[in-house]
């Protein structure tokens, strides 16, 4: 779905045709049967490509993620390499030191894997199931909202706000996540709603 793109056409389109010429000059057009190569085997051979966008700053560089396994076929996919997307008009394949190391963000040892709860006064997290965590959250929300919801102000005007619970949204989630978050949070009357834009 994301690869039906014009990317191989980029060389023509963006005036980088010289690069093609340059490559030709290396002798790469010759495809004679070669002896065993001394160089390291090309490590992206037979990987899956997926277009994505760097999640760090707002230059929003195009990236290509190379994975073993294809999510679109329902397989488990492991990202093995990430590189700049040469077809992207902004970054043209380049990446900064953060973007160039994105694979190690995906595979960081400190990635979270399971829901955890830390009980009051405890010095550790304990693993819980998603159901336990989410039911607990729903209960906490419901009880607090019912107890502290402000339906009208002193003048009797409906104000329908809830000030004792706040929601701090992110800065790198997708628009779609942001919109769903907006819907869910706004519908409760939470007014302490903010995001990273402020800092």
């Amino acid at each position: 779905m994301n690869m039906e793109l014009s990317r191989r056409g980029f060389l023509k389109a963006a005036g980088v045709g010289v690069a093609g010429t340059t490559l030709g000059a290396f002798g790469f057009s010759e495809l004679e049967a070669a002896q065993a190569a001394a160089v390291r085997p090309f490590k992206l051979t037979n990987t899956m490509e997926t277009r994505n966008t760097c999640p760090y700053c707002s230059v929003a560089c195009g990236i290509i993620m190379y994975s073993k396994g294809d999510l679109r076929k329902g397989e488990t996919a492991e990202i093995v390499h990430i590189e700049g997307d040469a077809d992207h008009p902004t970054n043209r394949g380049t990446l900064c030191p953060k973007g160039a190391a994105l694979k190690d963000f995906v595979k960081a040892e400190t990635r979270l894997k399971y829901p955890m709860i830390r009980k009051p006064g405890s010095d550790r997290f304990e693993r819980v199931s998603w159901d336990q965590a989410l039911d607990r959250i729903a209960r906490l929300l419901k009880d607090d909202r019912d107890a502290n919801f402000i339906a009208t102000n002193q003048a009797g005007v409906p104000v329908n706000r809830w000030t004792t619970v706040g929601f701090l949204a992110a800065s790198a989630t997708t628009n779609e996540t942001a919109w769903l978050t907006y819907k869910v949070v706004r519908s409760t009357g939470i007014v302490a709603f903010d995001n990273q834009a402020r800092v």
Partner: protein
Amino acid sequence: MEPSPHTATSNPPVSAATSNLTERDLVRRSASTVPPPARQLEPVAKLIDVSKCIGCKACQSACVEWNDTNPAVETNTGIYENPHDLTPDMFTLMRFTEWDNPQTGNLEWLIRKDGCMHCEDPGCLKACPAPGAIVQYSNGIVDFIHENCIGCGYCIKGCPFNIPRISKVDHTAYKCTLCSDRVAVGQGPACAKACPTHAISFGTKEDMKKLASSRIEDLKSRGYENAGLYDPPGVGGTHVMYVLHHNDQPEIYSGLPKDPKVSPVVNAWKGMTKYIGFAAMGLAAAAGVLHSALTGPNRVTREDEEKAEDLVKEKA
């Protein structure tokens, strides 16, 4: 809009690609001789335009990711260089120099990407005693073949730029390969692709020289009258070249050598010493053989034994 030519910007292939760098393309092989290559690949070069470099270390990052190295988390020692030096896990390193330009009185922050220069006349290869541990392709890439490396560190002594490093893990020498595996399938090196400002370009050496001259012209128009291309002839030219704003004093860029060449000491070691050594050892052996032939063995005679017996009798 793009200055042309520059780094080959197409995305890497994922279908099986034929490697274009084969043993057949070797022009030099350490401690061995190779037959003349059947074809001459177009010489390639990486051009590092120091005047465009922002010292962001994207090249270091991309290099680590592409080459699957594992640099250590060190400390801060009061400078921006990290790791503090090239290591077997860091083939390239931004080196930072805060330089007060005596002519303008302005501070200049000179940031140079250090790494293998891929010399036309590679000192490492010359020094290497292990057959096939260091090779040079006809496009100019000097590559280390780890299966053949014995970890002796002679390449370190041979290199005029202080580049190779020996791994404490597998005891083989590491340095920038110019991403020979990428170049072999028509891609530019990982650092050149990543470089955000196109301070690193990759293409044929001829094209890179043209690109350099346009950059030098731009720099001259901005008042850098000594701007120039660093392609040192002392090592036969290099396949990694720099555009420097102050090409008259390359040493201000964290000690880039002004006129690098393979050290005469190394030349003596890998040259004359070998002949003298073999000659000396041969002469010594030959002298023995000759002497033996002329004089025969020096045997203890019966008379000598008797003399000794007499002496002992006398004294006992």
